């Protein structure tokens, strides 16, 4: 502590170390949050259902997605990334997951989500297995923190079925 620059250096180093500790504690405090999100998805319409020239099935859906993800937000949350995936089983793969739509919720005020949309990303199968297929629509979310650990979870909604024949 014998000179100006020595004291300035010591102060900055100590201050930044303490800042790192505070950010770690803020991340740990996220574990005490027990969220209770809800969501509901309806398939309003199958717009078209075809087999592409290269042999893969493709379907276009109109969806009504509503979710209340406000309880996921803590003081250490920057944004919540949410996406909807269709999950089903084929003879070739035990689990297929196709992302149909995603969005970013920037704050708790926007967390009561309601959207009526066609699928943002194409629902294409690896092969031709979708006729009459039962599938789940799963809402996944990633809670992205300002500092520290990211939490991810999901809600599985079952009971959806594709038509037996192409349209």
């Amino acid at each position: 502590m014998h000179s100006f620059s020595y004291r300035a250096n010591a102060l900055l180093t100590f201050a930044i170390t303490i800042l790192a500790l505070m950010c770690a504690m803020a991340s740990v405090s996220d574990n005490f949050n027990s969220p209770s999100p809800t969501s509901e998805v309806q398939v309003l319409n199958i717009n078209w259902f075809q087999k592409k020239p290269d042999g893969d099935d493709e379907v276009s859906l109109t969806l009504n997605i509503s979710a209340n993800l406000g309880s996921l937000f803590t003081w250490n949350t920057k944004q919540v990334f949410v996406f909807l995936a269709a999950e089903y089983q084929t003879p070739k793969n035990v689990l297929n997951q196709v992302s149909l739509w995603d969005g970013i919720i920037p704050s708790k005020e926007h967390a009561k989500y309601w959207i009526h949309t066609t699928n943002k990303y194409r629902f294409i199968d690896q092969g031709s297995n979708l006729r009459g297929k039962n599938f789940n629509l799963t809402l996944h979310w990633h809670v992205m923190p300002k500092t520290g650990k990211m939490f991810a979870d999901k809600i599985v909604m079952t009971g959806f079925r594709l038509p037996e024949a192409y349209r």
Partner: protein
Amino acid sequence: MKSINTAIQESKSFLYSTAVISPMDWQGQKLAEHLMQLLLVCFAVVAFITGYVLRSFQMMMLIYGAGVVLTSLLIVPNWPFFNRHSLNWLDPSEAEKHPKPHPAISGPKKKTSKK
């Protein structure tokens, strides 16, 4: 006009000579170190609790940032209250009475002689 400028220059050089480049005595260094640790930890605790209660990360960062700036203003410059216990170095005349021993030139076992 010129006298104001020279006054400003003089006070700047005075501040520089006392607060920046002159050394701090030992008690002052100890005080500075303890003060730095105490202030930063206190501000960190207050900032974290305030941010957690108000559910605002930004409040925590603002309070802590203000604390860092305040602490740096308090302990980095060499304020006069750090120099209350100045060291008394020996006078040159006193030092001459106790000269440094001369190193031995030949033979490792030869003792050094003190005058």
